[in-house]
């Protein structure tokens, strides 16, 4: 059973389109995240949710909207895609309360905007 699973793994789309990525974790963790990794492998946090509540919202364009229907799921919707959005998006989870807080990552969703 995959601990943190993301779908889809690959997305190729045209500029201006809208796309969504879904993430689910079965570890019982209380916190979930979206990270963006660019072509130089730099990793930057985008959003963090703790028990469905948004706790971190970095300076990310409004076109990116996360949604957490429950503490095991965190989705990312992106409107009006731009070339610069091409990257690998990683979902992750951690146990912050009574845990070490280390991140468990999904396999990543590689988004290519043409």
């Amino acid at each position: 059973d995959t601990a943190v699973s993301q779908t889809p793994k690959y997305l190729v789309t045209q500029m201006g389109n809208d796309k969504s990525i879904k993430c689910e974790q079965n570890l019982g963790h209380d916190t979930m995240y979206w990270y963006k990794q660019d072509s130089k492998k730099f990793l930057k946090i985008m959003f963090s949710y703790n028990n469905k509540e948004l706790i971190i919202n970095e300076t990310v364009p409004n076109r990116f909207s996360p949604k957490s229907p429950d503490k095991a799921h965190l989705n990312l919707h992106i409107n009006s895609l731009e070339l610069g959005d091409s990257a690998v998006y990683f979902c992750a989870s951690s146990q912050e309360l009574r845990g070490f807080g280390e991140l468990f990552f999904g396999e990543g969703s590689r988004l290519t905007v043409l």
Partner: protein
Amino acid sequence: ELKVEQNPLFLSMQEGKNYTIYCNYSTTSDRLYWYRQDPGKSLESLFVLLSNGAVKQEGRLMASLDTKARLSTLHITAAVHDLSATYFCAVVRTAGKSTFGDGTTLTVKP
């Protein structure tokens, strides 16, 4: 703002050699992690360092933390090809927010 700097960014070494990757961070922090990423793959946690002087070892990798110097090291002993990967340190200052270094891409050659 917390800044995390790793060096070197690229490291090419021969099998059997030793080397150290450095991770400096700019402000006091709660915890420090080391992660490994194989090409085209996800990241996996290697070590969690929670206090000054903490040392953790797993196989040929050893990580240490000096909170006074705001420095962590990842030491590689007698490198083997299987250790080729990108290694990231990540520092937590605010609960729930890990700030990553830029990564060190290690290539171990026979």
